[in-house]
């Protein structure tokens, strides 16, 4: 994996807005903070990460955020 290694990471950040059809989700967000993207299960993220060529090594969560340590 060191062939072509570019130490400086690529960083992507995407912010979403709940749309007008997702009021329930928005209300849930205020109550539980576990809504929106956080309802996505890990296999779905792993499927996405396959495109990136990364695998999930470990993860932890708190009330606000899910974090994943990835390969590469």
């Amino acid at each position, binding site marked *: 994996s060191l*062939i072509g*290694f570019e130490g400086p990471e*690529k960083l*992507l950040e995407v912010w979403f807005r709940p749309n007008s*059809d997702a009021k329930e989700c928005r209300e849930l967000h205020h109550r539980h903070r576990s809504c*929106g993207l956080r309802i996505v299960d890990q296999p779905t993220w792993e499927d996405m990460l396959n495109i990136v*060529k990364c695998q999930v*090594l470990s993860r932890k969560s708190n009330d606000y955020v*899910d974090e994943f340590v990835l390969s590469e």
Partner: protein
Amino acid sequence: SSMFVYSHKIILKTCGTTTLLLALPRILEIAHTNCGLELVDSVFYSRKAFMFPAKQKWPHGNWGDEVLYLDTIFQPEHFHTSGYVVGKINGEHWNLYTAAPRRDSDVVGWDEEDPYSEADEEMEELYKDDLTLEVLMSELNPEKMKAFWKKDGETEEEGAKRIYNDSGLGSIFPHTTVDDHCFDPCGYSLNGLIDQYYWTVHVTPEDHCSYASFETNIPISVAASPLAYQSYEEVVRKVIGVFEPGKVTVTLFSRKPENKDRETSDTESRSESSTSVNGSNHATTLFQLPVVGPGAVASWGRKSVDNIVSSEHANMVLTGSAVDGYLMRDRVVYDLGGWDLVFAQFTRKRR
């Protein structure tokens, strides 16, 4: 590499020959179909200068391709997009792309009903302290890097624990929840959480790709408890002390409040490049930027996060003492539409 998933945003940070941007359509699809999140509020993509562009897979071989690729997803009729090169084009520059939805009612084809208007107040709350500090380091001290190799007979878990405790990383934000990994035979990644804030560290200790990155969105007011941090400069100094790099790039991003230049792509910048390097006293003004125009100034200190986020960038002064042993090579202040950016570079003084 790391990923952070919030209810309303995803942060994905990868290195090596990863093909991060190719996953963007899938991310948007997941957000839409799985979560009902069809409206993108903002997009931010950054990367440091290319090192081995010929060995990367499209579109990661050059900045122009990356911007073109992103512009095909965030099309100009719906988004304000920008692709910047921050810093010296032939130096340790940074590449930055931003996209934010157009909300002009006069845009051809734009629906008269603004779908973004309903969630403005909520987004303001989410944005209110959005600030990211990043420290990129290369030419790391080889003696320091010995800690980042997995030892014989050591499990990856044991190695991670040893590295965290022995390298000095454990003293940066000791009150956070940490998830880390020691790679075989070397290398280390860490994600730390405290409430809605994170910090992340990635290290490749080999001489031929000696590199470490540190990034956090922890406000100094949070970081300071129970520590005695008075400013981000102290955090930067502590991080640099762990790795003793030969070269350092520091960036501080802050998002502007809604309706403050979010809808313009005009860029203003003020550069104070290496002219001061030869000065004898520059070490006391490493982060000090000139005041432009009248108005209040904000210090880069304990109580300054709100000020930084809410102040006009041009009126912002970052004060603080030196990073001992380093020379500033470049410093730039950018007003990037919806974001403010401070960019500074340092090199270690010769002994």
